[in-house]
């Protein structure tokens, strides 16, 4: 049981900071995800935690143990981290069992540990296969078992599911996260897939330009974004031009009202599922201009007095292009000054 604490971490690459005074705290046993666009420094963060690269400044702590300060950098082999790379990266010259046993130092329990992990990942029958004889999902499972075998203090996952096809990815993701939570392994997974980041995490950290801009539970980061940019990174949003007066009243196309003095311009952040479409025309007048039907839900594209508004609806698709409807905002008010 080890917490992970990172303070003021700066990593430079060719004299440019990739990580810039980054702070992150993951409680012991938590499954945390770092969500960010490609190039924001996610993989660099994992590599610094694993000890593959030396930071320019800042500290990394595993529980009470300081593993990285500017002067002392504990080498990766003494950190006890598990690392699962993209596409698994199994050693091609070793069998499944040999891959899993690779990091186990105690001779006595080796076989026992390997057998137990093989059962856990459901691949006992494939113990003597070579990696090139496994499917993508099986390779990811073995890579996870290999990382778990030495009982790491911290588990690091670098987009481990990105190479798998969609159906397999969902199942394996659920399987892996429940397995890691069961063992109370403190886990940090980086991903650029916003669904993936939210669905398995206890804690989501949103990363931009080498910094963590918000951390919180999946619900918190989705519903209480600290900025419009952060809101975009966790899901679809409508950004509506709006104004706020000195009494706190907000005027926008969806929340039309008369304002007092001292007006500030800003953006209203609304999720597409936070708008109700009234067939009877109650609310802001709008016209249906297009429909995207996904099966489990649908997105209705509307025109409200020149503004394009998308609304996600579930259940039956009751509208058709050209319908005159009314729109009603039913979610929380999230307003950010420009």
């Amino acid at each position, binding site marked *: 049981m080890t917490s992970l604490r990172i303070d003021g971490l700066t990593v*430079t*690459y*060719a004299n440019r900071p990739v990580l810039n005074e980054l702070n992150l705290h993951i409680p012991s046993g938590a499954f945390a995800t770092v969500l960010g666009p490609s190039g924001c420094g996610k993989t660099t963060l994992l*590599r610094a935690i*694993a*000890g*593959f*690269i030396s930071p320019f400044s800042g500290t990394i702590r595993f529980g009470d143990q300081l593993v990285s300060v500017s002067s002392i950098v504990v*080498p*990766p*082999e*003494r*950190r*006890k*981290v*598990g*690392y699962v*790379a993209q596409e698994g*990266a199994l*050693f*091609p*010259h070793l069998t499944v069992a040999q891959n899993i046993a*690779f*990091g186990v*130092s105690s001779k006595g329990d080796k076989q026992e540990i390997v057998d137990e992990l093989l059962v856990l990942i459901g691949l006992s029958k494939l113990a003597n296969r070579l990696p090139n004889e496994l499917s993508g999902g099986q390779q990811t499972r073995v890579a996870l078992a*290999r*990382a778990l*075998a*030495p009982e*790491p203090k911290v588990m*690091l996952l670098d987009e481990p599911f990105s190479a798998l096809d969609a159906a397999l990815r969902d199942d394996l993701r659920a399987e892996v996260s429940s397995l890691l939570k069961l063992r109370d392994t403190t886990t940090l997974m980086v991903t650029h897939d916003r669904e993936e980041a939210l669905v398995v995490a206890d804690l989501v950290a949103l990363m931009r330009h080498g910094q963590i801009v918000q951390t919180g539970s999946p619900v918190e980061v989705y519903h209480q974004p600290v900025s419009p940019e952060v809101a975009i990174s966790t899901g679809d949003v409508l950004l509506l031009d709006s104004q706020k007066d000195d009494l706190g009243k907000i005027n926008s196309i969806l929340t039309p009202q008369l304002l007092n003095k001292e007006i500030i311009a800003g953006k209203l952040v609304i999720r597409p599922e936070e708008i109700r479409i009234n067939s009877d025309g109650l609310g802001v007048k709008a016209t249906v201009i297009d429909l995207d039907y996904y099966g489990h839900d649908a997105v209705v594209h509307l025109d409200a007095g020149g503004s394009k508004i998308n609304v996600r609806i579930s259940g039956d698709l009751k509208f058709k292009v050209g319908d005159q409807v009314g729109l009603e905002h039913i979610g929380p008010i999230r307003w950010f000054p420009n």
Partner: protein
Amino acid sequence: MAGGIAVPRMLQISALFVLFLASIPLGYLLLRAIASGFAAASAVLLREKTVSTLITTVGLAILVALFSAMIGISSAWLIQRTNLPSPGLFLVLGTLALAVPSYVSTYAWIALIPSFAGFAAAVFILSLTTAPYVLLAALASLRRIDATQEESARASGLTASQVARRVIWPQSRPAIFASLLLVMLYVLSDFGAVSLLRVDTFTRVVHTMYKATFDRSAAAVVALILVLLAAILIYVEYKARGSAVAAKSGLGSIRSATRIDLGFKKYLAASYLLIIAIASLGVPIYVLITRFVSVAAEINVSNLVSATIATVSAALSGALLAMLFAIPLGILAARYSGRLSRYAEFGILLTHALPGVVIGLALVALGSRLGFLYQSLPLLAFSYAVLFLAKAVGSIRTSIARVPRVYDDISRSLGNNNWQTIRKITIPIAAPGVITGFLLVLLTAMKELPATLMLRPTGFDTLAIEIWTQTSISQYGQAAPYALILVLVAATPTYLLSRPDRAQSSESRENMTL
């Protein structure tokens, strides 16, 4: 390649040490040339003989490149793109020519036609010897071009010949030009064929000067002209290779184009390839076997055995030394970028530009100053190591680059330190490629002639030396058994690498000779 990774100290030191050792031959020649003084050096440079040698050498290189291109490109096209009967057989025949050292095929033609000599004969022999390089390069680039490209071009209204000119040729050109530069480098370095045919190129002139006079400084100056020519080729080849790689697009699986139906003419095409195969392979094999049979009764088996042992022991120690030298440079090239890596690459390229006769000249002169090394096996092994360093480094770099860095990272995270990771991960994965590279260097070293001729210990007669000596004194029958053994030894891996069912990279094929 990550920029910020520091090169371990041990690696730095050993790489610098190897680069120092590898620069000894060239450095010594430069010192000798400088010591002779500017006036003496320019006197050598401006001699009529030097100028005529330059014309002969450059002319030979250009003509051979021309003919080699004609043979190589036409063979590749016929083999890959037409309904030629048994294309696999012609591919094997075309590449097996690599196994016959130029001095062996020259010997065979001289044994067949005693008046066979001169410039035209050298063009003939060297074109046949080097055509496989162009064949393999052209074949590889033809295979790389996806059929859909040609189909789209045809669909947009181009004729077959327009497709060849506007789609296929522009994509094959960089690889073919690179192979032609290798061909010219081969011609510059070749010693055996031109010497037996009495054509005065730089290699033969350097050797003659070394034999005839004790004025090693003049020989050094002439040798340096040769190095300069080779360095120019290496430089151009290096630049061309860069653009050849860039021209490759990241295609997934490639569908090969449909073969053109030649109709009745396919038998003409087959006869053309057959004639080439007879000239490059048939004649040498016929001569070797008939001559061998004619002298079978009087073969001195113990001489044969001792020559084979000498060949193997010299080549083995040279190849081992070459691989040992190549380890730090190969790791550096595969795993680190930065100034030292660039210096290392430059140094390796420069050794590639040193023909055997030049290394031989430098080391024989140096050896005569250091008495204990003069005509010793270690010095001969050292010459092989420098001569084949580029090839050894190439194989090690390719093999190590095949081990992705992420394996190192994961091994480290699983509790192994740097050395344990090298032992458990890098070496096992890289080993097959390194061993193949070692075998190729070994085989090439077994065929080496000029450096062996100049540096071997007295009485140390390898197969190559025996063939050379017997042919020089017109004892064609006596040379046959030695040549036969040499060709058999060299042909096996060439055959294995050229088999169409083997998915071998063209790089490992290119590593075969030179």
